[in-house]
Structures are given as structure tokens and as C-alpha cells.
């Protein structure tokens, strides 16, 4: 019990501090070269591939330009960024005709990312650079299949953190996933509405190898990231627990304690009705109820309080030689 892993010995505080110093040094070195190249806050000189100087675009679209300038897209020191490529035209296409036509809505056939623009066209500029990392499995994923555009969730001009179109992920995602909004407000919940977890703590909306866009090899692997004490493997496994935590828990929220999908003891009695107490009809008699007796006045320890879990505590698995029934 409690055998400490032999890997990564030593004082972590020191290691963390050392890493922080390394990070600071690296950043410092990086900064030195960056400073020289930058005129603070000013738009960079036009990129070689641009047909229209971005500074021209800002004459009319100054608010968009401002947000572009402050975003990662506006950093000309970053070689793959639009600012280092064709600037505004990297995403919006050649603007020559737009400028020559005097500008205005619809002039020059610029790519505008409006709702009327086909999703594939809207997504193509984004995927030119972002088809990697977290987005590597986008093609054929749930959101791709349902014709979700990058700009449905991201406001490239003026978005919030990660250029999200809403201030927080739950606010963004529940615009379509409306049922989840109610779940997040339920009594038993993960600290999502407190801002400690977000949708992407468990899901990768850009595509994963697992159902429901869960960003792990399995649902359980995702849960173990925070609940490593339930990972085991255990001497006595509880089979449905090992198969999927979702058999008993609803991670989005529940009215029942511990995010359980149903009330105990009925939840347990879905599978367990052996001889004796586990099969018993755990209810009050009608006369008892009529007399106002509460469950605490009945001889039914398997019904009161946390029901089966009053005794079967190690329900995620037991390592005790006497833990066959998860009592210990």
C-alpha cells in the first residue's frame, strides 16, 4: 500500500524552480532578438506576398485591424503567421479588386467568413496552418461532419481567450449543446460554473480518437487524469467501473450525489439482486409512510443515507484481501 513510485525522485519544488529559470532564460534570449525587430504596437511592413498593404486595409477596417494586430495572427516575427505571410490576404484572399473598386460590402469577392459563405471555404484558410496538433483529427470528426465552421466558435477578430466567440467555453458550447446548460447548474457538478474546469478539460472539439470527442484513449483514461486514486489496477475490480465511469456517473451534472445517474439503492439494484438485503424491496410500507415515519425510523440500513455505499465503500475497486465485496 502506498508504495511510492521510484521515478522522478527528489524535491519537486527545486525542479520546478529550475525549470522556471530555464524558461525565463529562454524567453529572455528570445526577447532580445524580438525587440530589435519590433516597432511596438505598429503594423509591420507589408509582407512580400501581399498584393495590398495591410495598412491600407486598416483605413476602413481599423477595428478589425486592431484586433488582428494584437492577436497571434498579427505577429510578423512568427514565420507562419498571416502577418509574416500575406497579412490580411492570407485569410481573405487577394484584395486588389476590392481596393480598386473603392471597397465596400461585396466588392472584389473577398472571402468574408459570413454565414452565407460555404463552410468548406470558411474553414480552408484556417486549416492551412492549423491542421496539426489539437486539430490533426479534425477531418471526419463530429463537428466537421455536421458542417461546423471554425468561425462558428472562434471570433478571429475580437474574440476572447483562444479567440473564442464567447467569454467562456461553457457559454460557447452550450449555445448548441443546450441540454448541457441545465446540467451544469445541477446540485452535483464538476467545478465548471466556478471556472475551474472547462469543456476542453475533457473534450477536444477539433476531433479525437474517442467517442464524444473525449480527449483520451477512453473515457476512463480521461477521468483518471484527475481521479488517479481510482485508476488501480485493483486486486478486486468492479467490472462495469473498469469498462466506463459513465455507467454510474454523469459528468455534466446530476441532482444525485457524486454525479450519479440514478438514486441509490436503485442504481446498484439495476445489477445486484442477490439473496438477502441486496434484492430487498427497499421502501417504506404504506402504513409507515402514512404514519409519517422517515427512513431513519425503519430497520433498513441499506436504504438510509448513502444506501449501499454505507458499507460497500470501495466501489471503484479494492486492494484488500478481504475486499471481495468492496467493504474494505
Amino acid at each position: 500500500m502506498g508504495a511510492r513510485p521510484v521515478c522522478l525522485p527528489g524535491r519537486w519544488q527545486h525542479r520546478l524552480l529550475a525549470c522556471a529559470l530555464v524558461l525565463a532564460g529562454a524567453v529572455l534570449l528570445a526577447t532580445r532578438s524580438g525587440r530589435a525587430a519590433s516597432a511596438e504596437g505598429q503594423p509591420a511592413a507589408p509582407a512580400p506576398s501581399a498584393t495590398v498593404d495591410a495598412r491600407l486595409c486598416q483605413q476602413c477596417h481599423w477595428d478589425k485591424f486592431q484586433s488582428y494586430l494584437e492577436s497571434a495572427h498579427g505577429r510578423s516575427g512568427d514565420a507562419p503567421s498571416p502577418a509574416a505571410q500575406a497579412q490580411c490576404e492570407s485569410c481573405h484572399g487577394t484584395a486588389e479588386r476590392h481596393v480598386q473598386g473603392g471597397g465596400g460590402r461585396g466588392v472584389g469577392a473577398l472571402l468574408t467568413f459570413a454565414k452565407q459563405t460555404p463552410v468548406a471555404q470558411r474553414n480552408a484558410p484556417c486549416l492551412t496552418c492549423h491542421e496539426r496538433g489539437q486539430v490533426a483529427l479534425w477531418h471526419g470528426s463530429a463537428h466537421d461532419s455536421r458542417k461546423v465552421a471554425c468561425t462558428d466558435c472562434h471570433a478571429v477578430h475580437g474574440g476572447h481567450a483562444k479567440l473564442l466567440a464567447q467569454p467562456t467555453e461553457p457559454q460557447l458550447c452550450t449555445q448548441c449543446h443546450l441540454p448541457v446548460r441545465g446540467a451544469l447548474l445541477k446540485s452535483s457538478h464538476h467545478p465548471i460554473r466556478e471556472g475551474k474546469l472547462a469543456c476542453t478539460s475533457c473534450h477536444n472539439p477539433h476531433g479525437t480518437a474517442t467517442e464524444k470527442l473525449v480527449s483520451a484513449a477512453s473515457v476512463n483514461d480521461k477521468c483518471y487524469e484527475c481521479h488517479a486514486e481510482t485508476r488501480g489496477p485493483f486486486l478486486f475490480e468492479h467490472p462495469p467501473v473498469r469498462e466506463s465511469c459513465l455507467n454510474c456517473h454523469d459528468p455534466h451534472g446530476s441532482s444525485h450525489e457524486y454525479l450519479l445517474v440514478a438514486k441509490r439503492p436503485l442504481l446498484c439494484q439495476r445489477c445486484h439482486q442477490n439473496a438477502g438485503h441486496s434484492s430487498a424491496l427497499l421502501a417504506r410500507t404504506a402504513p409507515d409512510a402514512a404514519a409519517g415515519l422517515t427512513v431513519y425510523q425503519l430497520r433498513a440500513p441499506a436504504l438510509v443515507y448513502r444506501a449501499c455505499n454505507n458499507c460497500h465503500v470501495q466501489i471503484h475497486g479494492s486492494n484488500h484481501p478481504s475486499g471481495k465485496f468492496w467493504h474494505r
Partner: protein
Amino acid sequence: MRPTLGRLAMAACVGLWPASAVEAQEPASAEPSPPPSAPATSSGGAEVGLDFWPDAGFGRPRLEGVYSPVVPDFDARPAPTRPWALHVSLSGLAEDGVGDSAKLEEYREIGAWDAGLRFRHRTEGFFADVVGRNLPLAHRDLVIEAGRPGVLKGRLSYDQIPHNYAFGARTLHTGSGSGRLSIDDAVQARLQASASAADATTRARGAVAEESFALDVGHTRKKAALALGSRALGPVEVELEVARELRRGTRPTGGSFGLANTVEIPWPIDYETREVRGGVEYAAPRLSAALGYTGSWFSNEIDALRFDNPWRITDSSTRAAASNFAAGPSSGQFDLAPGNEAHTLGLTAALGRLPWKGRLSVAASRGWMRQDDTLLPYTVNTAVVPVPPPAPVPPFDATDPANLPASRVDARMDTALLNLRLQLQPASAVRVVAHYRYYDLDNRTRALVFPGFVREDAEWRAPDTPGAIFTNLPVAHTRRDAGVEGSVDLSSAGRLSLGYTRRELDREFREVARMDEDRLRAALDARLLGWAELRASYEHARRDASDYDFSQHHRRQGEAEFPVLPFLVKWDEADREQDRVQVLATASPAEALVLSASLTHGRNDYDRSPFGLLGDRFTVYAGDAAYALGERLSVQGSYSREEYRYDQAGRSWSGGRPGDPYLVDTTPESLSNWQAREESSTDTIGAGLLAAVTDRVRAGLAFSYSRSDGSIAYASPLGTAATDANAFVPASFPEVDDIRFRHFQADVEYRLGPRLTASLAYVWEAYDIADFNTKGFVFVPASTDGAFASAIFMGTLPRAYNAHLVSLTLRLDL
């Protein structure tokens, strides 16, 4: 996806900006000219725009606005002429009605003071962000990010999450948070000396009233992480992250010494989890490939938990049946969560530009989970002397770990994942996606043979059948999914998709060895009239299981079929018909109006299961509307209703008595059968508005209300005691987790000057719960005759609260 208020907000912001700025939007000239003067910032009008969704309570800005200086304004940007910006805020909070409910502070602390900061630095070659929230409080977090764009990025973070279960709980045990929970010997001796069950109840209640201790039950996570990423090598990106998380505290749990002897105790938590993630990725226009590794090490500083039995000062060799003071151990021992480690090696690759605009993606991973904890002895009860039925095994000392079949567990599980996805576009409007997924969980834990075990530290339990054994069963499973989905673009605005997936699931050491499922799916995504969207999908799945071997678990151990109910089919192994319908409609008939509505309905029928879960239904209706009234006011409202229904059947029975499926009622029909219908509904209402009253004043209101009602209806044929194991008319439970949660927030923000903003906020939050387990709660339950002292609880069920909070926040923008 729907339009959002972001667009509306932008329009509103423009309206708030100084006229000079708006006038700057002149047609383009041929030559670049100097940029227009920036809007009045950093506390300028742009920050008082409607740039967030009034989310009615659950979003971070609205809910935490009171407690946190991280108000939406922190999304405002620094003036473009300055490379840095610093925002510092300080809040003072007054509260009333917080009380002793831990529910209000479940994941946060309500403190008298709060502070936060945000620093931002931008130059062409360097960026830095620092965000610190709730710095003096238990739910503080701090993130520092810095780097050179496109070359190097570093992230240092610290996050603290409290999890409070109960304040002011009561316990007879001392040593909370440690591995030894002790009760005063005098208390144990006094309870053991009870003359009757009623007397034991009286004595236990007296002990709780006079000699128990108050304690807060909860724990805190503290996680620090450092991540580095570099793209300095062009198409190759390298990432490395190390993290360490500590968890300290307690959580409520039960400890039993027999069926009629339960005591709730604080479970100690002293965990440490260390994690390393690393990866390298190569990306080129046609090919991308990433190799990653994750290692996780979990350790528990407290190996075992030994806890005293309130009713016994001396050990006995039998379990308490009805009179808990008459028999049982003086203490019990849990084996706490074992230290373990897991490693995963993963590969993701995507190959594009194949024929027919094809793209092939592969995700594969291999995982290893290991746990090799030292085994505890069978029991700490010195009176138990095991006498295993196989003659060669002599009686032995069950408290001596040397008498175990092994000293360590040596548990091993390996996982393997392979995910293939091929996307083709044979015609411009036609797309085909084929996918295959393989997931294998291989349990290589060795099987240990035990001659018996000690049940709840009270009595030796040998196999019922001579020659039988007890052993651990290394459950394992393998899942394969294969499918294809074809879609046709009906126009540039619509897509119709049809898909089929077959799933095969093989299990080891479960009742069903093989399950197959066929799933059909149709989806329509369309944009109508240019301003409305419709998304609809329907799924139907049929699951077939091979023969249900209800007694395999026992037979593997040489036991007879008894005592499993042979007619019961566990729902996750049962044949199943499943349907799912989802419809989402969104409309934006005017620039400033967004409407949406959704319907989700599902059903599961386990029609070949006479017992257990028979079926379930759920329906969720939801809708919301957002409207921007002019440029200075936006309103939003939402409503959802969830309805759930579960039907379940069971049979009360015990060996040789009414209902016994082997000897008495050998068919599925019996007077001892019972049915239960569990129903619940949740209504959620949200509303909010946000107004830019003047260029200096912004006000917001938000309200949310969540109401859950549940019930359980029981039914059972009525027989006599000779024919019916439950010879009574059962009453239903009309109150099952009936919960009311209300949140109201009003705040006003006033810009005192270009660098100083004051916010005044009021929050009312109320939580109420009615449940058959909270109604009539007592620390020591007793039946009407005064007996039944079978449990001592700590009182950790959720409690109601009705809290009023007022905060004043000052924010300085530099």
C-alpha cells in the same frame, strides 16, 4: 452553429466609441495613411461594451464577478501604442446567511477580501501574460505565459481547487485526516455494555451529543505545472509539460462492521500525482505526425485507515446481526487507494492529398498501468481464527500478512488503441468517411487464491461449497468499432448524412462474453432562408448479447450458482433497442435577435430483461433568445426542461424462503417481485441583461433558477408472509433529491477615470434540498420502539443555504 451576440456587441461597441473614431472609417485611399487615433482606452468606451453573453449565472464572468476581480473587462485590450497593460483589482465582500452549509463554498471560498491581476506585454518578438485570480482565497489560480511568437512558449501555472463536503459535521473519532481514527475507550466500553438495542441507541445518542467532535470535511487540490513548447525547428514542434498535484484533507465515507453496524467516518486524503507529458510533431502540407508520451505517478501517503467500532471495545469472532454491541471487532481497517503508475505512448498521423481529396488519419496508443502495493492482512480482528474448509489448510492467524497467498498485488493492465479514419470526396458534393477503432484492455493481474476472507473485520467467510476458492478475476475487454458515413451536400447550405457503425465487444470474466451492436444514423444540417439553421439527427441501435451466463462469477470460483437471481440481466450486458433524436433550430431573423430551440429525446429498451433495468426514457426541451435593444442594451433568456424515467424490476428473496428462484418460486413470476419507476425532471430558467447606461456606467442583471423534482414509485403484488418476501404495500417516495437553486446577481460598474473603475455587486444565492434521506435525519437512527442503533452518521448530506453577498471592487488599469 448559431450567430452570437458577439456581432451585436461589436456594433454596440462602435456606438459607444468617440465620434472621431467612428468618423475615421473613410473609404480607402491609395496610399497608406497613419492609423486612426485609437478609441478611448484602456478604460475607454470599448470596455463598457456588450461584449459578453449575459449567461444567467453559470459563466465565469457573471458568477464570479462578485468574488473575483476577473470581470469581463479583463478581456479589454491595452492601447495599441503601448506594449503592456496592467490591471489590478481589489474587492471587499460582505455576506449574510452563508451559514454552515458547505454547498455554497463547495468549490470556492467566500472571503472578506479578494484580489487579482492581469499583466499583458506584447512586442513583435515577445509576449507575456500573467493572470492571477482570487489570489487571497482558497480557489486561487495563477498563470504565467511568455515566449517568442512562433519560436518558444512557456507556461507556468498554479491552480487550487477546494472541495468542501460538510462544515460542522460530528464524529466520535479523533485523528481526522490520519490513518488512525480512534474513539475514547470509555465510550466504546459504555456502548458495548448496552443492555438492549434500545439502550444501545440511547447510549449512542448520548455519546454523539456529549462527546463528539465537530469537523469540517473537505479537501483541496493544489496543482502546479510547467509547460514548454517550441517551433524553432520549422515544421517540427516539441512540447514538454511537467505537473505535480497534491490533495490533502478528508471526504465522508462509510465504515461497516456488519450489516447492522455502520459508522460514517472521515476518509483521509493525502495524495500526490506527478505527471510528465512530452511530444514531438512534424507537420507538412501533406503529412503530419506526432509522437507523444504521458507518464503519471500516483502515491498515497496514508496506506491504510484503521477505525474504531463505537459499539465494541473487545474483539469477537462473529458479526453483529441485530445487536451490534453484542458482537463484532473493536476496529476495522481499510486499504486506501494504492500507489500506482500509468504510461501511455501515442502516435497520431494524418496523410492528405490522397486521390478523391482523400485524407487518412491514424491514432494509435499503447498504455501500461501498474500497481504493486503491499497486501494488508485479512483483518485486524485478533479474535477471528479462520478455519478454511479444505482440510489441508489449518487454522491460521488472520492478522498476520504472512498467511496471505502473496505479499504484493502485482496488478498489471495494458491498453491498446488504434483508430483509423479515411475521408474521401469522390464528387464535389459527396463525402465518405470510413472509420475503424480498436480498443483493448488486457488485464494481466495474476489471480491469487484465497481460502476465504474476513467480512467487515467481523467474521471468517469461507466458500459455501467444499473445494471452492475465492480468487480475484482479472476482468478485461476488447472493443471494435467499424463504420462508414456518407454525406451529400444538398446545396451550399445543407448536408444530409447517413451512417452505419458496428460494434463488437468481447469481455472476460463477465456474464456476457460477446456483444454486437448495429447503429444507424441520419443527420441533416441545413441553413434556411439565409438566417436560420436546422440541425437534426436520428440514431437507432440494436444490441445483441450472447448467452447470459449469470453464475459465471461464482462458477469460476468453484461455487454453486446460489445466490444470484438467475433471471436478472445486468443492463450493460443486456440486449437493447436504442433510439435518439436531436433537433436544434437557430434563427437570427434580425441582426440583433438570436433565437434557438432544441429537442432531445432518447429511449433504451431492455426488452429481454425481466429484472434489473427494463428501460428508460428521457426528453430535454430547451430554448433561448437574445436580443440587443439598440446599441446599449442586450437581454437574454433561456429555459430548459429535462424529463427522465427509469423502469426497474426486482425480487426480494433469500435462500429457502418465499421468492427463492432455485427452491420456491422457480419461474420469473413471484409474489415477491417488485417494480420501481424512478422519475425526475429539471427545469432551468435563465435571464439576464447588460446595459451600457452611459459611457461611464455599465449595469448587469442575471438570474438563474434550477428546479429538480424526483420520485420513486414502488409496486408489488401483495401476498402473505408465507408466500411473499415483501408482504406489504410499499409506499412511494415523492421527494427524491428535490432541489431548488436560485442565483441572482446585479452589478453596476462606474468608470471613475481613465485608469480607475469601481464596481458594486449584489448576489443572492439560495439552495434547498428535500429528499427522503434528508428528511428526519438523525445522527443515530432509531426505530419507533427506540431500538435500531445500527448506524452513527456524521451529518454530511448537503444542507440548504440562503446567502446574500455584496462586494465593492476597485480596478486600476495601467
